[in-house]
């Protein structure tokens, strides 16, 4: 479990000071898929870099299972980073090894795993993200964009983290690739039972996959709740120029027509199935 308490981070550039995040409070439970949403510059990326102590807060705390991660006496930095895996935006640019296998093995090697354990972890991580075994001996630079990204995610998964944080894992991919990678994120959570933090600026992606959504705006956490709770406040969202997903709009329109659509449908496919089964279509 990760608890973020009164987290504030101030960037200094020359004589100018900007609060990137102000007094953020958030708790991520074990096994939860938490979505963090907000526009560019809302402080999402700054926030998540505190989760594995890459950035130190100006004030506030981050507790990992009750231990303050910035207290070097309580927990070593390397230990924090092993437990909280962070996948950056466009993670394919961090690949450097000759083969996919070696690149995924980088993290377990840094943590001093034995050769057998490294092999076990690499194979497991590659399988979880849907990389075929025959790709492991190829150069990571010879792969496609989506595959490179899978290698990078596997590289973090190979640490066996308790919490996996992904910054815009679907950025820059085509719609099909987006859906596939987000589906794999859900699969990681289901298979490993770990907490996942999914950062995105796309309501659609987050709504369809997250258990709870935290909305960042202008460095502050404005809302936090289940997708249904968040989208019920569509006016507040609009003020922040965040839109409810299109599929939610359609379902809301149906609700206005007097059709009792369940609250928990956020995926396009589920919505389509439900509508086909439950909405009587009149001919003509």
């Amino acid at each position: 479990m990760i608890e973020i308490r009164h987290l504030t981070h101030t960037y200094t550039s020359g004589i100018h000071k900007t609060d990137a995040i102000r007094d953020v409070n958030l708790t991520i439970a074990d096994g939860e898929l938490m979505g963090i949403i907000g526009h560019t510059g809302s402080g999402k990326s700054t926030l998540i870099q505190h989760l594995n102590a890459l950035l130190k807060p100006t004030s506030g705390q981050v507790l990992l299972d009750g231990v303050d991660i910035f207290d070097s006496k309580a927990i070593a930095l390397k230990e924090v980073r092993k437990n909280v895996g962070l996948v950056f935006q466009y993670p394919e640019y961090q690949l450097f090894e000759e083969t996919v296998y070696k690149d995924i093995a980088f993290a377990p090697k840094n943590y001093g795993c034995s050769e057998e354990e490294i092999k076990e972890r690499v194979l497991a991580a590659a399988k979880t993200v849907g990389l075929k075994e025959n790709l492991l001996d190829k150069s990571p630079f010879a792969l496609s964009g989506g595959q490179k990204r899978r290698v990078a995610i596997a590289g973090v998964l190979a640490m066996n983290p308790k919490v996996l944080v992904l910054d815009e894992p679907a950025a820059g991919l085509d719609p099909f690739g987006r859906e596939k990678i987000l589906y794999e994120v859900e699969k990681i959570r289901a298979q490993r039972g770990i907490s996942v933090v999914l950062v995105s600026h796309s309501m659609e992606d987050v709504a369809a996959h997250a258990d709870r959504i935290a909305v960042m705006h202008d460095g502050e956490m404005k809302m936090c709740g289940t997708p249904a709770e968040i989208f019920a406040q569509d006016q507040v969202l609009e003020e922040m120029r965040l839109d409810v997903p299109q599929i939610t709009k359609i379902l809301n329109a149906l609700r206005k027509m007097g059709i009792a659509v369940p609250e928990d449908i956020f995926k396009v496919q589920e919505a389509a199935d439900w509508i086909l089964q439950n909405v009587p279509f009149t001919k003509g």
Partner: protein
Amino acid sequence: MLKDITLGQYFPGDSVVHKADPRMKILITLVFLIGLFTVKSWLGFLPVLVFTVFVIRISQVPFWYVLKGLKAIAVLIAITGCFNIFLTEGTVWFQIGWLKATYEGLNLAGFMLVRICMLIVITSMLTLTTTPIMLTDGIESLLNPLKKIKVPVHEFAMMMTIALRFIPTIMEETDKIMKAQSARGADFESGNLLQRAKAMIPILVPLFISAFRRADELAVAMECRCYHGDQNRTKLRQLHFSGIDALAAVFTLLVLVFQFVIEGMTL
């Protein structure tokens, strides 16, 4: 770690020094650099020192920030200091084996220390208060006469602009890659020299790949916009020589005159 390098970095601000004509700033810096090398007595540093402190004050750049740039060359200063102390002939101060430290050497080392520090502070004041773009514009404009003898001044300036333009980008990228590799348990700060050098590979490989990609993309983008070098090119930012610049020039001359007067008196 990377943020500690002040040398050659711009410090955003809105002061008179920031707004001054880059050509003037470059010329003044050059004059002072040459001036510093003509100083022969301790007192001779005084006028330049006073002027530099005055410029730092009105530029609103904090003192500690300027002095941070000296950290980068601490080793250089230490080495030259040792050479001066031990290799100058004169009255012996103390002796380690065959190495003799002399009072004359100590004096010379101190003198060099002040000179090098002043050099660094003055040049970093130029870069701290001038954006790289303005700096290259200034250099291009100052070198313009060389075009007459077919020196490709514009092309050099363009190369410099591009190189300078990409320093922050590459720094940012380095920072990002370092963070990404730290997130995978990479350790850059412990181990012996060889281990540390090896720890750089996961940073350098992605960095080079992205630098080449960027260069390639930039070349294509420039071609697409029909970049043809210097022919009939106009500038978005025109340089203006204002009253402040004239005043600065007068001050500089005064400082130089003072320096020579003091030198003349002490000799």
